[in-house]
């Protein structure tokens, strides 16, 4: 996405608690899950037969893919601040299966005064179309400090 497209989304020092980040939505496409850079080293990420043999109902995404989705959402809202002094904490609480549609979410939970601005703490998670949470965590990022 071009920076101009996301500038209107940017969080500022005046952004209130409870503010909801705009989600990003992705399909867990098996061809991406099994690409060489992502999951090729483990057939549980791309081979339905191997996944079934290990008790999975379908191949599962690497958790790091959902972390990357959450990071994309945060870069849309926090811009350059996501690359200097930010913190991303994610816990993978359920498997993301091939073909699921995953949506990211974020809500500003806390603002801690810092310099001229605030350190924002944002609860983040990723869920499927049924609302089942797959990844949960929080992000900390400095805004206008």
């Amino acid at each position: 996405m071009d920076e101009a497209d996301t500038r209107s989304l940017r969080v500022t020092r005046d952004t209130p608690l409870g503010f909801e980040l705009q989600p990003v939505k992705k399909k867990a496409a098996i061809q991406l899950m099994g690409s060489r850079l992502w999951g090729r080293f483990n057939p549980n990420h791309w081979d339905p037969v191997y996944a079934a043999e290990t008790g999975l109902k379908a191949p599962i995404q690497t958790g790091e893919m959902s972390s990357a989705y959450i990071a994309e959402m945060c870069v849309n809202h926090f811009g350059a601040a996501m690359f200097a002094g930010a913190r991303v904490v994610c816990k993978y609480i359920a498997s993301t299966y091939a073909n699921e549609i995953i949506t990211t979410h974020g809500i500003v939970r806390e603002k801690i005064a810092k310099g001229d601005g605030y350190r924002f703490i944002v609860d983040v998670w990723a869920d499927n179309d049924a609302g089942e949470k797959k990844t949960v965590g929080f992000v900390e990022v400095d805004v206008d400090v």
Partner: protein
Amino acid sequence: MFEHDAVAVTDALRPMSAVQIEQTRSFIAGLEAGSQTYWDMVEIGEERSRELTLTAELVILYADGVEDYNEWYEGWRMNSWRIEGRSPFGGAIVPPLLVSHFVLSVQFDHTRPFAIGSIHTNHDSEILAPIPVGATVRITTCATDKYEKRGRRYVRHAVKVEDVADGTLYFRETRDILSL
């Protein structure tokens, strides 16, 4: 020639011909040969370290896999090929969690057998400074703990990522791997 029934060993998620099925089963058999559990491969205090050059093409491979098309990450474009790119920091930079993904290939590097049944369960990552596309970084992981919780076995690692040329500390992380 083929041991497997084409219908029985693939499905609509990943349609394949008979030759593709055979190639896939052969590849997986190779991975499984000599596989071990990660728990048994790692000792507390063990440190592993590797250098990685974050080429423009590597960054594109990562970003395309998660369909993140932010132009800040583009040090390579079709038709132009390598470009300086642009971001708030000047040229192109790498996505914030890219180096976290490559920690796997320090923990499970090519000298080790396939770590069967291992799952990455969580990470606590500090993104300290932007990493320019083209930088060579050193990723260092140290196994800091092995513990059991509710009948499951975990290995914890502490990670740091530094610039090889000037020592800039870009990234720190704590992460857990669940192991059979």
